[in-house]
């Protein structure tokens, strides 16, 4: 067991109708890093995140958050799902969605009050969405939806943030806002693990990376494992959009 690890995944196997989606995956993410999970479509990236969160049953394996099983450390973990996973025509506004992040801490019966509202407004400030607090959520752009989801995770005051494609299809302003938030989290010693698609931004945004294709191909510091050879193994020879993003001299 690695006491300094934010997330420790040992021998994780997840199967969907007897087809393995993740096979014997190990992953040890140190505390205070921005970690990317990359791999081709169907590699099991989203499955890995959902399995860590207990949303998908695992066939085998162990998951530790800050050294303890996930079920005991739930409060330390915040989740930013893909924004396409909900119906944005739901009758509610931005502030209300962000306050949902406090529902776990509130416990049963108690309603969100002034404290929760202030908490949510502070999170909206961080993602530059304060002026949208009263906005009906169906009137948000894709990037704004993503920032609302990020704010909802921020109010959880977690130590580990799991994000499913936070940069997927967002505008440049949102991308900058998210990067700023991620860096602030890292500066505070928190850990972020994000499923990421754009390989060319991996070295710029992240300092730790896991290359995944059902099995673990490689994992570690970007400078060490984000190599041409590892990417070729992960993507089966067809590496999209590399353009020299690979760490110089490491290959």
């Amino acid at each position, binding site marked *: 067991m690695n006491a300094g690890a934010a997330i420790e995944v040992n021998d994780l196997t997840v199967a969907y109708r007897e087809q393995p989606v993740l096979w014997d995956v190990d992953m040890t993410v140190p505390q205070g890093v921005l970690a990317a999970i990359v791999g081709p479509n169907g590699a099991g990236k989203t499955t890995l995140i*959902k399995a860590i*969160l*207990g*949303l998908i049953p695992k066939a085998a394996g162990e998951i530790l958050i800050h050294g303890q099983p996930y079920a005991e450390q*739930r*409060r330390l*973990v*915040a*989740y930013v*799902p893909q924004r396409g*996973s*909900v*119906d944005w025509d*739901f*009758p*509610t*506004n931005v502030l*209300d*969605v962000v306050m*949902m*992040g406090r*529902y*776990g801490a*509130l416990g*049963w*019966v108690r*309603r*969100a009050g002034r404290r929760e509202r202030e908490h949510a407004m502070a999170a909206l400030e961080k993602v530059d969405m304060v002026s949208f607090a009263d906005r*009906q959520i*169906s009137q948000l752009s894709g990037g704004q939806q993503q920032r609302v989801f990020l704010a*909802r995770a921020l109010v*959880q005051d977690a130590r580990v943030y799991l994000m499913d494609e936070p940069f997927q299809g967002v505008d440049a302003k949102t991308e900058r806002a998210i990067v700023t938030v991620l860096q602030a989290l890292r500066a505070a010693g928190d850990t972020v693990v994000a499923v990421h698609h754009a390989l060319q931004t991996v070295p710029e945004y992240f300092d730790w990376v896991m290359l995944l294709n059902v099995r673990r191909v490689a994992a570690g510091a970007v400078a060490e494992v984000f190599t041409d050879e590892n990417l070729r193994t992960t993507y089966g020879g067809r590496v999209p959009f590399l353009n020299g993003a690979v760490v110089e001299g490491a290959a």
Partner: protein
Amino acid sequence: MNLFRELFFDYTLRTVALGAGSLGAVSGTLGAFAVLRRQSLLGDAISHAALPGIVLAFLLTGSKNTLVLVLGAAVAGWIGMLFVLSVVRGSRIPSDSALGIVLSVFFGLGLVLLTYTQRLPTASQAGLDTFLFGQAATLLMRDVAVIAGLGAVAVMAVAVFWKEFKLLSFDPEFGATLGVPMRSMEIVLTTVLVVAIVIGLQTVGVVLMSAMVVAPAAAARQWTNRLGRMVLLSALFGAAAGVSGALISASTRNLPTGPTIVLAATVIVALSMAFAPERGLVWAGIRRRRSRRAIQVDAVLEDLFALAQQHEDGTHGHPVAVLEAMSGGRTGVEATLRVLESRRLARRLPDDAWALTPEGLREAEARRSTRSSTA
């Protein structure tokens, strides 16, 4: 106004109105969540699945006590609901098929049992078939107490589990990561939905009860963008539909209550779909017409301006046919010209010819320059 006086003094009417009003409020409250979770059909399956439970409860106890029959209905509806949830979770059968299977199998079983009991030599089974289409006129204060009592429990559950039901409806996976037991919450919500449905079966009937779950909520969604207001409105609409439908039915001979209540709910839905601000079709139609009109005004103004520039004399008139040809055969050019006339941007000359006024000329020039600067 006679009806209003009777409502206060006539015991039967007052009982009917109270019963139908409270069942409508409860089904409206729970219906809001069913509609938001896209489970409108679940209500239909539950109400149909309740029929064999009602008949079996009678066969086992020999009693037609409302509480007994409602309990039978609830047990059967609940089993049907659990069946749907487990089939969806544990097999590849999609949920609409699972709902269809449960609905028809349980309802078929209920009809067989109902036919069987009606052949029994005793006369005590008489009236069970009113559960098909509902019968408000037979409501007693005792029944109203059952409806209101169980209904209050259902509404209280919504108040207690408000946050959890909201998470369940909006983002259940996120809710699960917060540590909220979403599966248990789903069973609680659906169980409360079963309660809301079975208390309405005597009045509205198993065939149409699902309309009382869907219609008030669908109407309420039109008027508001907040969950709390939607649930309140839905309860209000449900109560209004229940009271008005039940009173109309009770004061007319041989008019079944279920269909009348559902028609009342339909009127509310139709009015909401037409006139609700933002989402209402009437306002959307008006907005669409306005923007089409604005585009047409712009186009005709542009055309007149182009014609004016081709002639030295800006006040030279042009026939409607020319403008129609320029607009690509679009209709309504003449109406658009009249709009321009009323804004003093164009004027009609003899022989149905049209020209820009000096103001129209300035306006067209101004619009053209803003267009080219933004382009």
